[in-house]
């Protein structure tokens, strides 16, 4: 445990030094600007826009950080050869993967929590009351971050950091387009194509499972089973990704 902790702390600090938390200020400014400027367009919808926009932007910020920093987590260490002394210590490769994962994940968790608090405060300023219902979006947004970070680490474990970010973006798009994949599968008349589409639909990460933003903004009912299953889905998917990343990383050499 202490070995993972050391890597987690190290990764957290390294990433923190890139001044990521400054995004909080940008987030606050964005929200205020948007809520002021969209007001005249919104025609009575501005409370909704403030909510939609706040949730969307905080989620996008998290995803951006995953893709930008997550892709270089392992590569920076290899390119700068800082990983050499780490590999030579009695550390399992899996511990490095998990440590890197948790280190960046915790940082993003701090960031997103900060953004959620700012969001709530701005809602409070405008409406005189908090909207605690929206808080459910936070763990789900973090689940999405988890899965994406797992994907980036998986690709980092064998390909370049550029490749890893591109794959991250592709999986992000696919992951949110999965309802359309299902639609395609449902409607496809070619049986083979239909089954291939279904297999992809069920195997590829379905990031829409973590997207409850609309339901939350409109206070629509969300079945608690859906919440529970989505939670399990995110966790198990992440475990799978990290497991595969570890297997690949164990074979990796440092030339």
């Amino acid at each position, binding site marked *: 445990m202490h070995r993972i902790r050391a890597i987690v702390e190290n990764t957290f600090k390294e990433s923190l030094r890139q001044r990521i938390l400054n995004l909080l200020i940008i987030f606050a400014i964005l929200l205020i600007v948007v809520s002021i400027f969209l007001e005249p367009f919104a025609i009575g919808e501005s409370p909704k826009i403030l909510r939609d926009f706040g949730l969307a932007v905080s989620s996008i910020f998290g995803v951006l950080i995953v893709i930008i920093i997550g892709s270089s987590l392992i590569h920076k260490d290899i390119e700068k050869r800082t990983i050499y*002394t780490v590999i030579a*210590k009695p550390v399992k490769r899996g511990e490095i993967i998990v440590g890197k994962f948790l280190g960046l994940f915790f940082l993003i968790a701090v960031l997103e929590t900060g953004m959620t608090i700012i969001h709530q405060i701005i809602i409070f300023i405008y409406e005189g009351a908090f909207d605690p219902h929206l808080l459910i979006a936070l763990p789900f947004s973090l689940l999405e971050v988890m899965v994406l970070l797992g994907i980036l680490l998986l690709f980092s474990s064998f390909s370049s950091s550029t490749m890893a970010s591109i794959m991250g973006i592709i999986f992000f798009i696919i992951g949110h387009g999965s309802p359309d994949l299902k639609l395609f599968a449902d409607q496809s008349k070619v049986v083979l194509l239909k089954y291939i589409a279904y297999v992809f639909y069920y195997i590829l990460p379905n990031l829409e499972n973590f997207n409850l933003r609309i339901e939350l903004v409109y206070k629509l009912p969300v079945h608690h089973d859906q919440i529970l299953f989505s939670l399990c889905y995110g966790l198990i998917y992440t475990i799978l990704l990290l497991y595969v990343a570890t297997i690949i990383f164990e074979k990796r050499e440092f*030339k």
Partner: protein
Amino acid sequence: MESAIKLEHIYRSFKTHFWQKRKLVLEDINLEVFQGEVFGFLGPNGAGKTTTIKLITGLLKPDSGKISIFGMPRDSLKAKQLIGYLPESPYFYDHLTGYEFLKVHALLGNCKDYEKKVYEQLEKVGLKSAANLQLRKYSRGMLQRIGIAQALITDPELIILDEPLTGLDPIGRKEIKDLILEQKQQGKTIFFSSHILPDAEVICDRIGIIINGKILKVGELKQLLKKGIKTDEISLEDWFVKQVKEKDA
């Protein structure tokens, strides 16, 4: 005497480009380093020293052959626990302070009382005053020393140093040499590679010479020098140049 490192029939090749043929870099390396000795691994540029060391520390894997550390397979965590490693021209996390850097490695090396160990090491390599300085502000010599501190922090039985003396001024070299000898006094095994032969001459019990990926000679320093030149007075450097020339001819 028991062996600390044992390399048996190690082969290793690299592909520079994926369409090119593999280039053999290490060819049938057999080498044994005994417990408690200081072993100098010498050879010209590109001979395969760093490659050999990376194989021992697990950064690379051999194409074939067997590597054991104190009789244990190299990949086992137990074996790794006994190794301290300083890479060639090391780079460390720029933004960490000397203290933080050592702390990470102490924790990775399963040190129980890491705080005490970190300060001990900082003291030992003379970097106590720079403990809270970020590594990017360290000089070349300071980096080399913090690198050695990182290798020694787990109190390893086997210390592997890839060119620990390169890039240091005479005082720096003296300090490192003293450190190596001190470790030897404590019964530790030291395996290091070097170009700087006069320094190696002072501290080595035995040396191994590698040229073009093949071990040319292994043996006690005094005997090798005698055998080669038949007089005690000639330096290792002269002897070495002669050996390389002979080999090329």
